[in-house]
C-alpha cells in the first residue's frame, strides 16, 4: 500500500498572521508620557521642579539645550533594528509610540507624514547597524528568569508580573503605580534579541535610563524567557524576528532625508547625520499655537500627549529662574530613578508597594535587604571607588547579602562621580590622627578578646564573621573616607536609622576603657590604621573559619583522600582522635607529613567543583625528611580501631606501613619481606624511639 503524502502546514504562518492582526493603533489610556521621577514626586501639583524633570526626561534639552540633569537623556541606539525588532511593531510605534508601549516618552514624530514616507523611514532604520549576528538561543528557563526579574532589581522601575507572589506578601500581587510599562515583547522582538539587549544594555541604551545589570548569558536568556512568557525550553520552538523585506537604495535615501528633516539625530545617534542647531527657548512660553508643548504640534515638531499637569509644570519650569545649582542634584537622582532604591536626605527609597520585593539576608535586618542610603554618599565614598561602582566593577559589590543588584552606568561613571563628590564634599570634616604605634590596638579592638567585637558581625576578607554576615571590613580603606568612618562609628544610626550596628562609643565615650586609655579618637584612628595597614587579622577568629565541614576525629580515625598542598594529588589523609594527623603520599608510597592540632576542612574536597588543594588546619606541621624508600602503593587496610595499614610493594617484595596514635605519640610499624628492609625517613622535629624485632620495625614519634 502506498500512502499519499501532502505538504504539511506548519505553525509559522499562523503565528505571523496573528502578529499582524494585533498591530492596530488606538491611542488611548496611557498615552501620556510616563516619567517616574515626575510621577512620584511632582504629579500632585504643578511645580517648576517637576517641569525640570520632564524637560530632561522628555528629551526637550536635546533640541533646546539647558537641561540641568548630569546625564542627558538620549534615545536608544538604533542599530541592527532589523535583527532585533519586528518591522510591524516598529511601524506602529513610530506612528503612535504610546500605543505600542504605554507611557513611552518618545513623542509622535510622524504625524502629518504620509504612509509612503513612513515606509521610507523604516527602510532607512532597517539599514542601520552592522547586522551583528545574535547569539543563538540558549536553553531558557522562564521560572528562573521570573525569580531573577523579581529579585535582581528590575522592580525598581517595572511592575511584578500579575501572578507573582510577593516573598513577604499575603498572596496578593502588587502593582506599583509608578512602574514603567513593558511593550508586548512577543510582538516587538525575539527571545534572542531581548537576551542580547539585557546582556549589553549600555550599548543599546547609552543614557542609563535602562541601566546595565551584570548577568551572564544564561541569566539574560532566562529573564528574556520570562518577559516574553516563553514557558518551553528549546528556544527553537519560538520564531525569531521576521525577516525585513529588502529595500531599494532610493527608498533608504528618501527615509534618511525625512529623518534628517525631523531632527531625529537630536536624540538618536545616527551615522552621518548631525543634529540641528539648538533651538532657543521662547522668552515667555505658551501652551497654544502649534508648538511642541501644545496639543496640536505642527507637523515636523514632536507631539507629546501631555497631561494638563505636565504641561503646567513644564511651563512653570520654563518661566522660572533656571538656576542650575538649585535643582540639579535631586533632578538627576529623580531622572535616573536612583530614588527607586535609595533614600537621600529623607527623599526616595523603596515605596510601600515595592518595599516587599527588596529581599536579602533578614538576619541583618532591613540593612540586609535594602540598598544603602545616599545621604552624604559623595563624602562617604572615595572618588575612585565610587567611579568603579558606577562602572560596575565586581570589587564594588560589597553587599552580597542583597538580592537586589546595583546596576552600572559605565558611560557616565565619570560625570556622576564628579557631581556627587562635589555636591557632598565636606571640607570641614575632622580627619583622623594616625599614630603608627596604635596599630596593634586596632587589631585588638576589631576582635573579640577585650575589643569592640566587630568580627562578631563583619566578615574579614576570607574569614567569615562569627555571627551574622555583615559586610567585609578588611578593605574599607579602599572605599571610604576616614573622616566619614569616624563620624559613622560615633553614631551609626544617624547615617542609617534602624541599623543593627550598635553605637560602640555612645556619646563619644569608649566602651573599652583599657585600650589606649579609653581615648575614643585614638581608638577609632587605630582601627582605621590597622585596616589600612593590611597586615594580620583581628583577634578571635578560629584558625580557619568558613569551613563548617571541618573533620574532627572523635572516636575513630578519619581517612580521606584528596588533593593536598604539601603532598600532591594522591594524598591520603589520616586524622586521629589524639590530634596528631598524617598525610600519606600514594604516588611515592611514603608518608609526607605529620601535623598536630586540628585536622582539616573537607568542604573543598566534598563540595567544590574546582577541587582546590586542601591544607592542614594547623601551623604545627612536620614534614618527613627527604629520603626513605619509594614504593608502589597498593592500597590500605583499616583495623578494628579504624587505623590504617598502607600496603606497599618494593622490588616485588611486600612492605606494610601502619600508624596509630596513643597518648600524644605517633606509633609507626613497618614490616617487610625477606631481604626487603626499606630505608625510613622521619618527620621533622620528632623525637624518635626505635624498636626492632625480626622484620618488624616500630617507631615512636613524639614532639616537645
Amino acid at each position: 500500500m502506498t500512502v499519499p503524502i501532502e505538504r504539511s502546514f506548519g505553525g509559522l504562518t499562523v503565528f505571523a498572521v496573528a502578529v499582524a492582526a494585533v498591530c492596530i493603533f488606538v491611542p488611548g489610556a496611557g498615552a501620556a508620557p510616563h516619567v517616574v521621577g515626575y510621577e512620584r514626586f511632582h504629579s500632585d501639583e504643578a511645580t517648576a521642579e517637576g517641569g525640570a524633570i520632564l524637560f530632561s526626561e522628555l528629551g526637550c534639552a536635546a533640541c533646546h539645550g539647558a537641561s540641568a540633569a548630569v546625564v542627558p537623556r538620549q534615545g536608544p541606539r538604533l542599530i541592527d533594528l532589523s535583527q532585533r525588532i519586528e518591522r510591524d511593531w516598529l511601524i506602529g510605534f513610530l506612528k503612535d509610540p504610546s500605543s505600542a508601549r504605554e507611557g513611552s516618552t518618545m513623542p509622535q514624530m510622524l504625524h502629518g507624514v504620509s504612509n509612503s514616507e513612513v515606509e521610507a523611514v523604516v527602510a532607512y532604520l532597517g539599514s542601520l547597524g552592522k547586522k551583528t549576528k545574535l547569539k543563538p538561543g540558549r536553553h531558557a528557563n522562564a521560572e528562573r528568569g521570573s525569580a531573577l526579574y523579581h529579585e535582581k532589581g528590575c522592580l525598581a522601575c517595572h511592575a511584578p508580573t500579575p501572578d507573582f507572589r510577593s516573598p513577604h506578601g499575603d498572596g496578593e500581587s502588587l502593582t506599583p503605580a509608578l512602574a514603567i510599562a513593558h511593550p508586548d515583547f512577543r510582538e516587538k522582538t525575539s527571545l534572542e534579541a531581548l537576551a542580547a539587549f539585557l546582556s549589553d544594555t549600555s550599548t543599546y541604551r547609552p543614557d542609563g535610563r535602562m541601566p546595565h545589570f551584570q548577568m551572564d548569558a544564561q541569566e539574560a536568556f532566562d529573564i528574556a524567557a520570562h518577559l516574553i512568557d516563553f514557558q518551553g525550553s528549546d528556544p527553537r520552538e519560538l520564531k525569531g524576528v521576521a525577516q525585513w523585506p529588502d529595500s531599494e537604495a532610493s527608498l533608504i535615501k528618501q527615509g534618511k532625508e525625512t529623518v534628517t528633516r525631523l531632527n531625529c539625530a537630536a536624540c538618536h545617534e545616527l551615522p552621518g547625520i548631525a543634529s540641528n542647531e539648538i533651538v532657543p527657548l521662547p522668552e515667555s512660553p505658551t501652551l497654544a499655537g502649534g508648538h511642541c508643548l501644545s496639543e496640536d504640534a505642527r507637523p515636523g515638531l514632536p507631539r507629546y500627549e501631555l497631561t494638563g499637569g505636565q504641561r503646567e509644570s513644564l511651563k512653570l519650569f520654563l518661566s522660572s529662574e533656571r538656576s542650575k545649582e538649585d535643582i540639579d542634584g535631586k533632578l538627576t537622582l529623580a531622572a535616573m530613578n536612583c530614588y527607586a532604591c535609595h533614600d537621600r536626605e529623607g527623599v526616595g527609597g523603596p515605596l510601600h508597594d515595592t518595599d516587599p520585593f527588596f529581599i536579602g539576608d533578614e538576619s541583618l535586618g532591613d540593612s540586609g535587604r535594602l540598598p544603602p542610603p545616599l545621604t552624604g554618599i559623595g563624602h562617604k565614598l572615595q572618588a575612585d571607588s565610587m567611579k568603579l561602582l558606577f562602572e560596575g566593577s565586581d570589587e564594588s559589590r560589597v553587599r552580597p547579602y542583597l538580592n537586589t543588584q546595583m546596576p552600572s552606568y559605565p558611560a557616565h561613571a565619570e560625570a556622576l562621580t564628579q557631581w556627587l563628590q562635589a555636591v557632598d564634599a565636606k571640607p570641614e570634616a575632622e580627619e583622623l590622627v594616625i599614630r603608627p604605634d596604635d596599630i596593634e590596638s586596632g587589631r585588638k579592638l576589631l576582635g573579640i578578646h577585650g575589643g569592640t567585637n566587630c568580627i562578631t558581625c563583619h566578615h574579614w576578607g576570607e574569614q567569615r564573621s562569627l555571627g551574622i554576615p555583615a559586610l567585609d571590613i578588611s578593605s574599607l580603606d579602599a572605599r571610604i573616607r576616614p573622616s566619614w568612618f569616624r563620624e559613622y562609628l560615633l553614631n551609626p544610626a544617624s547615617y542609617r536609622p534602624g541599623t543593627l550596628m550598635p553605637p560602640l562609643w555612645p556619646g563619644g565615650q569608649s566602651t573599652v576603657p583599657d585600650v589606649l586609655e579609653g581615648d575614643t579618637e585614638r581608638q577609632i584612628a587605630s582601627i582605621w590604621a590597622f585596616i589600612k595597614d593590611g597586615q594580620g587579622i583581628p583577634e578571635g577568629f578560629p584558625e580557619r573559619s568558613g569551613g563548617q565541614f571541618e573533620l574532627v576525629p572523635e572516636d575513630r580515625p578519619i581517612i580521606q583522600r584528596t588533593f593536598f598542598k604539601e603532598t600532591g594529588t594522591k594524598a591520603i589523609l589520616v586524622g586521629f582522635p589524639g590530634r596528631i594527623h598524617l598525610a600519606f603520599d600514594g604516588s611515592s608510597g611514603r608518608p609526607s607529613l605529620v601535623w598536630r592540632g586540628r585536622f582539616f576542612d573537607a568542604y573543598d574536597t566534598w563540595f567544590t567543583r574546582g577541587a582546590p588543594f586542601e591544607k592542614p588546619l594547623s601551623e604545627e606541621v612536620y614534614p618527613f625528611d627527604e629520603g626513605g624508600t619509594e614504593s608502589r602503593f597498593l592500597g590500605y587496610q583499616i583495623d578494628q580501631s579504624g587505623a590504617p595499614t598502607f600496603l606497599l610493594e618494593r622490588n616485588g617484595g611486600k612492605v606494610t606501613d601502619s600508624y596509630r596514635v596513643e597518648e600524644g605519640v605517633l606509633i609507626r610499624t613497618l614490616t617487610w619481606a625477606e631481604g626487603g628492609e626499606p630505608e625510613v625517613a622521619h618527620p621533622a622535629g620528632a623525637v624518635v624511639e626505635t624498636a626492632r624485632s625480626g622484620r618488624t620495625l616500630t617507631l615512636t614519634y613524639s614532639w616537645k
Partner: protein
Amino acid sequence: MEMRIHLFAAGLAGFMFSVEAEEAPPSYEVFELMTASSPNDSRSKDWRPGDGITLEVSGMAWIDDELAISIRKGEVWIIGNPLSKNREEIAYRLFASGLHEPLGLLRDGNDLLVSQRSEITRLQDNDGDGVADAYLTECDGWNVSGNYHAYAYGPERDGQGNLWVTLNLGMGPLANNAVGWRGWGGTIGRDRKFVPKALGMRSPSGLGVNLEGDMFYSDQQGTWIPASPIYHLREGVFYGNQESTKSLNDPAAPFQMSAIPKGGTPYDVALRSSKEFVPPAVWLPYNKMGRSTTDIEVIDEGGKFGPFDGQLLIGEFTNSAVNRVFLEKVDGEYQGACFPFMDGFPAAVVRLSFAPDGSLFVGMTNRGWSSLGNRSYGLSRVSYTDELPFSIREMRARPDGFELVFTEPVDAASLGDAFEMSSYTYLYSSAYGSDEIRTKSHEITDAELSKDGLSVTLRVEGLRPLYVHELSANGLKSVRGRSLDSPKAYYTLNKIPR
C-alpha cells in the same frame, strides 16, 4: 506513485519530550526515593548540601536486592529495600568513605570496584561487619595534575570480561593533558596498570555495554566535539579530540595515527582524512536531544521496561532527561537513531541502573553545572505501567531510505502529511561545539505501511553518508488514536546499506 514534499523551516514546530502522550495514560511512572532538601544553587561558590545524606549519585551497582551507590563527596552507601515505595522502609547504610570524587561503581564478586581521581579501587569487607575495611588499588597509571576536570570514569565490564576506564581531559587551572593518557580510554591490565586503547575523548562520563557485549561510551559537546556522541569503544581508534594526541609521545602508546585530521573542515571530510578517526554510532543533536550526555544503560528486562529491549538509554545532564538509542550494524559498524524519551527529572541525570524487577534507577546531581531540574541531587525510580507507548521503536537504514518500526500499528489515514526529513553534519574544529551545517531537505517520495501496520518504509531522495538524518513524524496516529511520544528521530547515517 510519486509525490513531492516540502520541508518547513526545521526546528520551529514544538515537540513533546514526555513519554506521556497527551491523551494516553502514562506508560511510565516515577517514584522519587530521595531529592535534595537544599535548593538548587549548585553553581554557587558557597554551595551547601541539604540535610541528610548528600546523595549526589555518581555510580550504582546492584548487590542482589540491595543497591550500592557512590556519591561525589566520596562515600559508598548501600540501600536496603530500594524497591519499597514507602520511604521509611528504605534504609541507607554507609559502606565506604574517604574516597576522592568517585564517578563509577561496579560489582565484582563479593567486592565493589570504584573509581577515584587517581585510581580504580577494590573495596572489600573482610570481617563481614558490613563496612569496607580494605581499599586496594585495582588500577592506576594515569596523570593526575590536580585540575578539577580530570575525572576518571568506570570501570565497566564488556562481554569479554575486560574492565574499561575512561579519563576526562583536564580543563582550566593546572590542567595538563600532555602526559598520562588524559582523553584516553583503556582497560585494566594484569599488573593493575591502565592499558591505553583509544584516544580522542573529551568528557567521556558514561560507559555502557550492549546485549552483544560491545562497549560504548558517551562524550559531551565541547572542543573538537561538535555535538554529543555515543561511540563504540574499542582499541586502535581516534574519536576526534586532539588534546589527547599529546600522549601519543608516550612510549607505551599502543599505536600511532596515520594522520591528524585538519580542523575547520566538515565532519565527513575530516573523517575521511585519517583512517583511525571514527564517527560516533549516534549523534545526539545539540539542544534537540539535550546538551550533555552521561550514562549508558542497556535495556534487557524481558519487556518489564516496555517494548525497547536491546536498546540503550542515555542519561542527559542539562535537560534532566533520559534519551533512547536504537543501534544496528551496517557493514560491520554500529549506527542508528536517537529518540527523546523522558524528561522532567528533579536534577541532572548522571547515572542509570536497572533494578532486578526491571525498573530503572535514575541517579542525579547538578553540582558544578546546572540543569532544568530544580533540585541539587537525588535518586528516582522509573517503572513501566504496562501501558504501551506509541513510539518509533526502531529506525533502520535502507539503501533508499529508512524503515520505521512502531510499537503499535499505525493508523493509515494519519500517514498522509506526517513525514519530513532533513540532514546535516557538523564542523570539525577546536571550537566549542558546532552549528549544524550543510543542512538540506530531502524529498520523501514514498511511505509504505506494512500489512500489520507496525512498520513504514520511507523512500528518501539523496541520502548523504556520514550525515545526521532528522525525521519528523508530526500528526502520526496509532490505530488507537494515540500520538507519538516523540515525533522526532535522528539517524546517524554513517553508511548507507547496499
